[in-house]
């Protein structure tokens, strides 16, 4: 077992220092973007209509009544202060605070009858990210029975096969927490740590961050942009590993990360300064906006599953978090002043950018949290956890947009038609990128959820 940066790896293979340098050299001088694209083309024959999935993980649980399932005729204590507005699709309305997404409603489907089985962030998060609560950890620390399942991105990594120079699965954002405790369900689970996500993040002041390499002083994507600094970084890494008793246990996962970081082509993927300033501004000059832009660059390069975490903590900044959606109090002020327009701007820019590059037809975009929020406004002008009914949107990848699937009751408390689970949503998305029952079974996994036929 080797703990390097924030990534812990196991099932290790021995790698020598010379071998390590060779791996790095291959990244620099060997496989390039053209090779990767060629490999992708060969693979496409066995894949579904889409190639990639971008999951915008709205951690903390957005209010469905204030986003995609407004109930203007509900009593004042339920409906909230916002009005629904018409969209580009006749008959479909969303919140007035999502005007840009309203104009793009033809591009996505709204699922209004999602439901989960827990109102604990940790458990519902595991359900949302794996399809089941096996091995989930509650706020109180209780671990639910069963073997933790791999998260959706890890399934993509497993089925499409390990790629030495490019991760199949990237998470943009930190580890997910509730109550400042890490949750389970965002790793390879039973598939092993080889299929854990490669992690990136974005900081407004530092740019793209690579937690795996935080161990090495001064190494940043921009710091690897010339041969001298690259050589220095290689030597620094090698020396640090030589000193480590665990050197011989470096595994494939780390080789991949190492190769990725030392490959000029891949390295350039991280460099958001290569994007036009206007486009960066279009995505939004805030963390989530720039992370969405990074997600587009990653799928463009061939990453099959990118999970963009809205935040690492469910809690808002006001509650010592980092801006999550768990707004038990001051809900409307926070939603109105920050969350709504941030989601509206970044998600709209992502859809536009993918479409303009011809990538939307082959890239599925999902925006969803682990649950919704209580339809009845609480005594602190907030909304609490509500797993009985919530909404999400799914776009692109050949899935049918411009429709609403499922319906909630007059207070958005319970589904009244077509109840759907997170497992159904991701069974559909994975199916669309070519991961169906056959592929899952071959990977040793039990299929979960039903493909939502209205979408495919």
């Amino acid at each position, binding site marked *: 077992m080797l703990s390097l940066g924030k990534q812990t790896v196991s099932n290790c293979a021995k790698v020598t220092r010379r071998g390590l340098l060779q791996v790095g050299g291959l990244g620099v001088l060997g496989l390039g973007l053209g090779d990767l694209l060629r490999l992708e083309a060969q693979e496409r024959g066995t894949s579904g209509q889409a190639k990639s999935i971008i999951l915008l993980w709205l951690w903390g649980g957005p209010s469905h009544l204030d986003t995609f399932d407004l109930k203007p005729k509900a009593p004042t*204590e339920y409906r909230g202060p916002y*009005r629904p507005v018409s969209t580009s699709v006749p008959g479909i309305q969303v919140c007035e605070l999502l005007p840009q997404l309203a104009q793009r409603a033809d591009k996505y489907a709204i699922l209004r009858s999602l439901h989960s089985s827990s109102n604990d962030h940790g458990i519902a998060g595991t359900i949302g990210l794996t399809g089941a609560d096996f091995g989930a950890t509650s706020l109180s620390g209780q671990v639910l029975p069963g073997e933790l399942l791999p998260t959706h991105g890890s399934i993509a990594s497993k089925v499409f096969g390990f790629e030495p120079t490019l991760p199949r699965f990237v998470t943009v954002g930190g580890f997910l927490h509730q109550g400042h405790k890490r949750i389970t369900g965002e790793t390879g689970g039973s598939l092993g740590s080889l299929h854990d996500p490669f992690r990136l993040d974005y900081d407004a002041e530092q740019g793209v961050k690579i937690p795996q390499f935080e161990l090495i002083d001064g190494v940043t994507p921009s710091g690897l942009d010339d041969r001298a600094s690259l050589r220095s970084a290689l030597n620094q890494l090698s020396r640090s590993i030589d000193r480590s008793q665990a050197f011989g246990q470096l595994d494939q996962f780390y080789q991949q990360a190492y190769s990725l970081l030392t490959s000029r082509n891949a390295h350039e993927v991280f460099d958001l300064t290569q994007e036009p300033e206007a486009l960066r501004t279009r995505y939004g*000059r805030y963390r989530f906006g720039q992370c969405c832009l990074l997600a587009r660059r990653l799928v463009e390069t061939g990453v099959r599953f990118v999970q963009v975490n809205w935040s690492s903590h469910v809690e808002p*900044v006001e509650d010592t978090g980092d801006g999550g959606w768990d707004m038990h109090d001051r809900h409307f002020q926070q939603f109105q002043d920050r969350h709504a327009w941030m989601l509206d701007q970044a998600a709209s820019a992502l859809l536009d950018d993918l479409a303009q590059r011809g990538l939307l037809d082959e890239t599925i975009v999902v925006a969803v949290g682990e649950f919704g929020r209580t339809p009845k406004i609480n005594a602190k002008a907030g909304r609490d956890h509500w797993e009985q009914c919530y909404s999400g949107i799914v776009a692109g990848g050949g899935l049918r947009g411009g429709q609403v699937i499922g319906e909630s009751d007059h207070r958005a408390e319970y589904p009244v038609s077509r109840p759907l689970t997170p497992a159904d949503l991701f069974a559909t998305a994975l199916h669309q990128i070519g991961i169906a029952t056959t592929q899952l079974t071959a990977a040793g996994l039990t299929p979960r959820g039903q493909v939502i036929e209205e979408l495919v």
Partner: protein
Amino acid sequence: MSRLAILLTCLLLTRSLCADSPSFVRLTDDGHFKQRPAWSPDGETFVFARHQGATIFLYLRDLDGVERRLTEGKYSEYDAVFSPDGQRLLFSFNKASPNQGDIEVYSIASDGSDLQPVAVTREKLSHEEWPCWSPDGKRIAYTSTRDGNQELYTSLPDGSDEKRLTSDPAIDAHPAWSPDGTRIAFATNRWGDLEIATVDPAGKNLTRLTESAGLDDYPAWSPDGKRLAFTSNRDGNFEIYVAAGDGSQPRNATGHPAIDNFPTWSPEGRLTLVSNRDGGFDIFVAAASGE
């Protein structure tokens, strides 16, 4: 000519302003999200909340750009406003996070000393927020959820003699006391989405001022009380509208595709706001008074 006017004249001469928004000058330039700016009565200083990383702290900034934190606290603080004599500030203070917050209104001297609780609820979690002063400084208004819903309250500046002004299942928020002392404007969704209304200081004479297909929020009286600025998305984007004091003749005072929010006025009547028109969120002031 006030120091702010002189500064703005200099800025106008030396800065090239955005072609599509020629009438506003940027006062901050860090781009971090900001919330509720408010001017000191002498127009020499403004206070605002800056969101940076996992913090929300209050800052005082003078016209030379010199800045300091208002408090030394470690928890979130925001929505500060100067007393009419400029000696003290009221602000909201999230003193019990984590645990889903216990927000209270505190008072502090403008030099950062003498921190005092003002509007607090001790027996349960509640939120006392968005304080404002009466024009004579003898009472304050704020919102509280202590009775199970967000309502308007007034009290003496030390928190005593509290009076509840509204009682409606809707959300009542963001009170602003009129300069003549006769009305308190606030945002409410009792008629559907958020609209601006007024009540008198006794909680009587509820009057609806706006009726728009869109959100109207954050009312702010001009110093002469003849105009009322507020945030509205009635045209599909967050803009600052300015209406007559009775809500009539609203007009879009910003007209920019960026987000414009949190309106306030300088003592000499220059509209001030938070906008991301230059990319990040900064504080802008109108180059001309009356705008």
